[in-house]
């Protein structure tokens, strides 16, 4: 919505703009702080309602091994015609000051698996439980941006997610998974910011502690830019105009899903097996985001979902195994699975922040 001049009936005064060249803060103790955004950055989403769809692929489930490495259930391959579900997110500023910005958010992601042939009790329990229950995540998150001065800042992001095969009856909160990242950053110009830090993340499916790098930049003409939080995501941005933006890049998605509900049949009690699906995938994609009307933006993503891991892990006395990519431990997974890499599409309607 462009603005119309409601004062057009008033005669405009001629302004001597040079009067305003040499001014300083009236409050001599006032400081300048860098802002969390840079020029040209894609707008933050306050509310997002979207739908995610993956095309067909083969899911080859391996044998499920017991704690004693005995085979509990034999593997098998099924065709999944589609994986789809609703994705909803909210983000609301709680504190928005020059010296501190604090946001709180919530999200719900639902993932349903549509099998070509409905698995039965004779099939591997992973197929059965995915077909019957799907996977979902409900979480809350927070972001704190603390500028130290006009060039330096600290950024903290934290989230608590309940992920599993639960339905309307939630799992106990003891299965919450916590992720967090803390970065120190600099904002040398209005068009560039970078930062380095450490993250505790489930992006590749299982718990990891990894270094992270933030880099956001926009060129002088606001036509090209980069929006990077490596390794979680990295995109090159082409700004057609401030209401039309194209992105090319990737995002890592992942979470650990508790196998909470039991499939129909004779397999036994999955809950007592202490099993979690470690889902980690890369989404290589082209994204087009544009303003439909005023602050309502449509985002359309299309690309390939590239599987990194979809293995089932067994907790050891209730504790997750921290392998550090095999550097610390190399315990075998309870079930190793292979997925094809299908085309995917994601469409979301968003209310963007001022």
């Amino acid at each position, binding site marked *: *919505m*462009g*603005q*119309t*001049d*409601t*004062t057009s009936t*008033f005669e*405009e*005064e*001629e*302004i*001597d*703009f040079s*009067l*305003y*060249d*040499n*001014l*300083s*803060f*009236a*409050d001599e103790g*006032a400081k*300048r*702080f860098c*802002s969390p955004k840079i*020029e*040209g950055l894609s*707008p933050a989403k*306050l*509310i997002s309602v979207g739908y995610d769809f993956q095309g067909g692929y083969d899911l080859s489930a391996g044998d499920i091994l017991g704690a004693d490495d005995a085979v509990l259930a034999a593997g098998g391959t099924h065709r999944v015609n589609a994986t789809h579900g609703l994705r909803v997110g909210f983000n*609301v*500023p709680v504190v*928005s*000051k*020059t010296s501190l910005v604090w946001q709180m958010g919530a999200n719900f992601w639902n993932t349903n698996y549509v099998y070509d042939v409905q698995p039965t009790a004779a099939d591997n329990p992973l197929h059965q439980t995915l077909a019957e229950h799907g996977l979902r995540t409900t979480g809350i998150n927070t972001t704190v941006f603390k500028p130290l001065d*006009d060039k330096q800042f600290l950024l903290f992001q934290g989230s608590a997610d309940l992920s599993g095969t639960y339905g309307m009856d939630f799992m106990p909160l003891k299965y919450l998974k916590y992720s967090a990242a803390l970065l120190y950053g600099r904002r040398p110009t*209005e068009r560039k910011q970078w930062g380095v830090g450490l993250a505790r993340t489930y992006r590749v499916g299982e718990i990891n502690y990894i270094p992270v790098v933030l880099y956001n930049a926009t060129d*002088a*003409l606001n036509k090209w830019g980069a929006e990077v939080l490596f390794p979680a995501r990295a995109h090159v941005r082409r700004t057609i*105009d*401030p*209401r039309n933006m194209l992105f090319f890049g990737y995002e890592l998605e992942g979470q650990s899903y508790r196998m909470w509900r039991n499939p129909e049949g004779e397999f036994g009690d999955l809950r007592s097996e202490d099993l979690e699906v470690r889902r980690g995938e890369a989404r290589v994609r082209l994204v087009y985001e544009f303003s439909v009307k*005023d*602050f309502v933006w449509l985002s359309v993503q299309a690309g390939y979902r590239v599987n990194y891991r979809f293995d089932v892990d067994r907790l050891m006395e209730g504790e997750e195994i921290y392998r550090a990519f095999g550097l610390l431990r190399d315990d075998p997974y309870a079930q190793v699975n292979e997925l094809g890499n299908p085309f995917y599409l994601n469409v979301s309607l968003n*209310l963007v*922040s*001022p």
Partner: protein
Amino acid sequence: MTRRLGIWAAMAVIALGMLSFELPSEINSDVLAQKTAGDELLGVWEPSNGRARVKIDRIGTKYYGRIVWLLEPNDPETGEPKTDINNPDAALQDVPLKGYRMLKDFVFQEDGTWTEGTIYDPLSGSTYNCVIKMTDENTLDIRGYIGVQALGRTDVWKRLAMPKR
């Protein structure tokens, strides 16, 4: 003697009157305008990003803010003074940003806030509902929002003045 003093006094009044008409018009208008509740908002303010300075005036009973200074006054592509190129109304894209009214129609309320106005963001070409609160005499909370205040963002503006010598 009394008559001479009277002539000198009359000349002094005329001279002072001429002097007042030679003051810069925007300063002059502030001085001559009748002060009302809410006029503490008048002055020159700097948004948190420090890239612009906005002078707030009162016209009638409403308050308006014009961009009077830009950190980067010229378009890097053309070298010409920046215009409102992101305005979705093509007819307004040639309007210079310097002098642009980005705050409009604010009305002072009894609770000490200025409401019913809008703020325009030249970087995105979007206009938002806006409420202004003065947290101290030199600080404003400018909250742009969409429909309800919860869906918004607050920017802190600082008052500017001539540097003390």
